[in-house]
């Protein structure tokens, strides 16, 4: 098979990147290995586990189900951009720490990206809303209870 390269320009966490990339390279591999932003994790590579979730123009997407070339000229947000420039936690990061919402931490970046976008859209969720929104992210360690509590607590704090 002849390889087929493209120039790709995109923004990740507000920073512009330009790379030459093979057409078949997954967005997840591109972010992790070409851009060295390894905080985005890959769990299943078939769009089920949600670990690789990033935001594309503010919307959660599975970066394992997209090609890097498809992200051309789009704005991506990853876990590395979630804290403030001074390193202050996002309220959900703080709540996950306070409520022990992570154990091995491998699924955590995907959960943070999914649920921060959810909280932006749904500032006053019920527990059922949170569980529904979280149901596309698999966690094998926590049993979800503390993640749900963290999201509820973050929502409250973000409402002020």
């Amino acid at each position, binding site marked *: 098979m002849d390889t087929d390269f493209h120039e790709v320009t995109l923004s990740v966490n507000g920073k512009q990147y330009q790379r030459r990339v093979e057409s078949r390279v997954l967005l997840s591999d591109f972010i992790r290995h070409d851009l060295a932003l390894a905080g985005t994790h890959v769990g299943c590579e078939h769009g089920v586990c949600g670990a690789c979730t990033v935001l594309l123009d503010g919307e959660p997407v599975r970066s394992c189900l997209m090609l890097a070339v498809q992200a051309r000229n789009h704005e991506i947000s990853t876990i590395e951009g979630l*804290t403030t420039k001074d390193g202050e936690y996002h309220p959900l990061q703080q709540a996950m720490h306070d409520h022990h919402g992570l154990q091995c931490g491998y699924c955590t970046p995907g959960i943070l990206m999914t649920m921060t976008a959810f909280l932006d859209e749904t500032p006053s969720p019920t527990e059922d809303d949170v569980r529904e929104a979280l149901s596309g992210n698999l966690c094998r360690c926590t049993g979800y209870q*503390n993640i749900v509590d963290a999201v509820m607590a973050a929502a409250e704090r973000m409402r002020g």
Partner: protein
Amino acid sequence: MSTRTFGEPVKRNEDRRLLTGQALFIDDIELPGMLHVAFLRSQIAHAKIIRIDVSKALQRRGVVAAYVAGDLGDYWQPGPILVPPPPIAGIVFHERTQVPLAKDKVRHVGEPLVIVIAESRYIAEDALDDIDVELEQLPAVVDLEKGLAGGSALVHDDVGSNVSAHVRQTKGNYAAAAAAADHIIKRRFLYEHGISSPIETRGVVAQWDARANQMTIWDTTQAPVFVRNGLAGMLGLNERQVRVIAPFVGGGFGPKIMMFYPEEVLLPWVSMKLNRPIKWIEDRLEHFFATTHERGQIHDAEIALTKDGRIVGIKDVFLHDGGAYDPYGLTVPINSQCTLLGPYVVPHYDSSFTQVFTNLPTVTPYRGAGRQHGVFVMERLLDFAAHELNIDPAEIRRRNLIPPDAFPYNNEIIYQDFEVLEYDSGNYEPVLDMALEAIGYGTFKDEQTRLRAEGRHLGIGLACYVEGTGIGPYEGAKVQVQSNGKVSVATGIGTQGQGHFTVFAQIAADQLGVAVVDVDVVTGDTDQFYWGAGTFASRGAVVAGNAVNEASKVVRKKALKLASDLFECSEEDLVIEDGKVSIVGVPGKFVKLGDLANHANPMRGAVEPGTEPGLESTQYFGPKMGATANGVHAMIVEMDPRTFDLKILKYVVVHDCGTVINPMILAGQIHGGVAQGIGNAFYEKLVFDDQGQLLNASLADYLLPTALEVPRMELGHTVTTSPLNPMGIKGAGEAGAIPAGPLFAQAIEDALDLKGRGVELLEIPLSPSRLFELTRSARV
């Protein structure tokens, strides 16, 4: 006074790196010149290898090498026996361990045939399609009973049968006791446990540095020290030339302790051969075949009772699916055999099992490690006994609990740690009472009746269990005060999310009077700590935790001695807190721990003979035997009687694991265990066809529970300390996962009146479709 952190819900030291995407997981390792690996794996469960031709693959641009078994020369060896069979009289055990690449025959789908090395993973996977393989398919051994019947195909021809092992253990004289019993109840049970499926799959990175004469291996293993020792031997290197690092690992749950996986053996060898760093990361499809499983057992069990429901004895004969190879010995079926006895007085026990070779992936421990199977059998036998004897299910359990004055309680048979199965301590009845109270057992029947009149189908389940935890042999820890006053703790176990960076820090912090955040814990790096066994059997906190405690105590003593010399006062007049040693009642008179550490490492002058430099100690802890934790789970479900959709309305766990180091982390361990137990009981099933093909090898088809299936849990604790270690702790890692099976069977039977309809739930996993089949075949 410094605040004591032991027993407090201290937040985790490791969280920040994980929450900000800065923690190093294995696939994050990027090295200059790194090569990537893909494996060609057998798509047939049982076949003769006729021919493998990699020549076309080698012509592909970007492919560096491809090796088959024959290319490995003397390096090709079956793996070591990881856990030898225990010393039980009359034991039969045929050791047949996995090989790096299949040579003459493949024995399960997913067994590797060729390792392909290329400049990228994409190219390596492309090259798999270039390989020409000819396999001659043989009949596959999948069904345990058929596998033992005459004329069956043989997984290992030279064994002469598919018996991997046979063990009988007895206590008392069951046959004589049963002859005098009032009631005997017999059933056949089928219990299948699934795969651990951590969200991070396995991976290996190997870097041979020819100039430094040094091999570095990053590995998602739970047992880095054993991996180092084994690989050094195989590669012809000294152990000091090999460094194994288990970085942040994204969940383990047992299968990541298996060794040696073919990939662990092959990557370092290839790195030496090509003199390039090399990486393999398991993909999710590979994980279903290339990582070990737990699977099924078939039990023919009977319980003998008096008419008032006291257990006279139990007889159990079971088959255990061991898979294609048996490197982990008999740990899983021995756990089933032992844990079946539970928290109950069982005067007579006769238990035999046969471990069967099958053409399926190898079985090794996965969270619970066979304990689930035994607990299911015992709890179900008690349910049927309660029904037939017209005794309440909670009451029949209460009548049979081991009384608190009977500890240590000797069950006489041999456990997985090769010691006699003796429970160190326990007080079981209060745990049962708390669980009954929390679930609302006393009022449930009225509630159930009331709601049934409204057309709602609620059911209740209750299960008791014990968990043997914290077994030997030993772990060690090095505790060191650094010049900046921070404390470093290093231990040899691996960590996969259990909170070791925090609980070990709490232990050291309390002894040394420093803040938990000022204790830096290192696990899983063989250059940081040389000795150890690994993370398994709910033993990290118990065994490594006690080693940290012992080492911290010695450092504390050293600090007090140094300060007393410095201040020319008695040690009794000193207090160690807030990172310094002070004279009691003289606030200005203190020395910082970091300064003391420097003082103990002078640039000039002599260090007295018999003393060691620095504020440091390495200590080891090895318990005589495992500490036995116990618990009761209770659950109320609501069933849709037409679709068999299930909703958990309430889930209660009451648990006793001795002294608690960090209740927040303990709760997390229980929550996660219960979630896996729920998956096992009702959602996760490995579906094989009769040729050994796994039909649902994707996370879209193998259903891990989501936030919608796992309910909020209500936890309660009692504390019965263990006399086996100075901190009095017992392990807790697996407890949550153990008793969900019988809870589901009971609660569903109860909700759907299945007993009245002549249906008994004798198997796990259940599912809506399985319940449909079972109720339909009963024609009620």
